[in-house]
């Protein structure tokens, strides 16, 4: 009897040992295959997809070995799958949001509207994409804040990828006084763009007349720039435009108010005060 018990125990230990060995081999193999996939795919794909492929290969290989190890321990695969099915329904109900985010994440990775390193804008938030994960996208804003946006939000909303194309347009709105000659204003603005080496010569800058404003002729001057130089040009060119307008004697007006008493009323009484010694208007008799 003792010998049979020992035999069974030894056999049990052997099974556990085998299962453990399978798991360890599986883990090592999954790591090797995962990094090999990463190395190969990094030659052809971007960082985001490389990471995704590496993880898929790693978890797939590991899952196969885990199943094999369980099988070694005497668990039946069909029972396990059935249990997993019931479990997944329960987990699915409990974690609808997470599941939705995961699905959205997969779509984001597949559709690739932006990649790591791009600058995106979502409503009022703008930042550089640090990572695209299964549940969320992490952004770094210009003021060094870390923002986590759930993938579901990104799928549902309008996202602008600011750095998608190599060149961008800087739009500068400027108002000039009604008395100014617009052809002269146009000439001065184009000269400013020509002299700035960051402003692209082609596509040529655009000059738009936006309308007759309350106190100024409203204009838009648009200059193309390499995306990396966008902020730099935007700050420099506004200063250059102001200086060029000052040199050319072009007035940038601020809001004017005309006070009019109307034809039905008497004109405003005007009193000339000499040397600032007059009586204040309220005390006039």
């Amino acid at each position, binding site marked *: 009897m003792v010998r049979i018990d020992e035999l069974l125990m030894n056999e049990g230990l052997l099974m556990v040992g085998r299962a453990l060995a399978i798991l360890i081999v599986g883990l090592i193999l999954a790591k090797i295959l995962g990094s090999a996939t990463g190395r190969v795919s990094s030659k052809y794909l971007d960082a985001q997809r490389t990471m995704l492929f590496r993880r898929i290969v790693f978890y797939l290989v590991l899952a196969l070995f885990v199943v094999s190890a369980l099988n070694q321990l005497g668990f039946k695969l069909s029972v396990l799958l059935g249990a997993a099915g019931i479990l997944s329904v329960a987990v699915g109900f409990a974690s609808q949001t997470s599941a939705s985010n995961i699905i959205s994440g997969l779509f984001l990775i597949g559709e690739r509207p932006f990649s790591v390193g791009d600058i995106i804008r979502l409503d009022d938030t703008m930042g550089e994409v640090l990572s695209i994960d299964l549940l969320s996208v992490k952004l770094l804003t210009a003021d060094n804040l870390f923002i986590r946006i759930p993938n579901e939000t990104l799928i549902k909303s309008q996202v602008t990828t600011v750095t998608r*194309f*190599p*060149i961008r347009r800087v739009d500068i709105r400027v108002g000039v006084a009604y008395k100014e000659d617009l052809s002269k204003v146009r000439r001065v603005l184009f000269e400013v763009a*020509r002299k*700035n*080496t*960051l*402003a*692209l*010569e*082609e*596509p040529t800058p655009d000059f738009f007349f936006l309308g007759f404003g309350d106190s100024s002729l409203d204009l838009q001057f648009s200059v*193309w*720039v*390499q995306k990396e*130089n966008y902020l730099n040009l935007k700050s420099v060119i506004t200063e250059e435009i102001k200086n060029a307008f000052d040199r050319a004697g072009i007035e940038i007006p601020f809001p004017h108010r005309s006070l009019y008493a109307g034809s039905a009323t008497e004109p405003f009484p005007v009193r000339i005060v000499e040397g600032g010694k007059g009586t204040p208007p309220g005390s006039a008799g």
Partner: protein
Amino acid sequence: MGKNVFKFTKPLDPLCGEVPICFGLGPDQDCGMTMSAVVHAACWGRFGLAEGQTGRWTIGPMTLWVKRLSQEWRLAFERVDDPELALVETALPCKTEEVEAAEARLAFERFLMRDTTAVLHLSPAQADRSVVVRPSTPFHLLPRQETTIFVSSPLWVKIEVNEEKKMLKEIPILRPSDTWFGPSTREGELCYSGQTQARMIEDEICFRPHRAITPVTISNEARTVLNVEKINLPVTYLSLYGTAGGALWTDSVQVKLAETPLMATVTIQPGPPPQAQEPALTFPPRLTAGRGVLTRAMSSLFA
């Protein structure tokens, strides 16, 4: 080039055997050398700077200051707003008061190393992107015709130290404007822009110390008239050749517009062009183009 008049003085720095002649400007003094022979000696080559000395080089619109200390090199540069200025002037070493004034006016960049040696190399280099050259008057090339035009492109200055030529910095002598060259704002290539007279007669070429001349032969083998408003010049693949006459030339470029399909073949003829035979100096290109042939769609060369 009428602005260049040089005064010839003796080398001031005895450290380096190959120290070029030192120059100072004297508007009415004749140095007894031809101006163009002086240009290379003054701008490009190997110079010697003793510890604590500062050198000043004016190449076209840019003035470069290089100071040598025991364990560091210091660099500064400034430009004047005159792209056509063809001035070449070297002060080696520079006067103390001039250096003090420059140090007060400019921010010197520091490059640290264990020990500095007296050797300093200044060499011209092509731009780090293609240059889109726009003839000041666009022209049409008739079918089955060939022409050679001379176009100029802006140059960079490479500052290297020690015998093994350790690079300190590369500076554009005149920073050209950026431009985009491509069929749309989504596809294309970021280039520098430049304007050229696109002269066809060699004697009319205007040489400036900060620009290199490329002979571009365009042959139109198609049956339609070729309208040339701008040319994308692949300067990163072109070597530079300095003639004894002082001019800087590049490899010549041949552009052939084929009949069908509408493709252009760009061939870079390695070696100095006929105008620059037996060059005094040769500077290698930034990139090598394999067999010297680039085939591009027509839209990526002309517009």
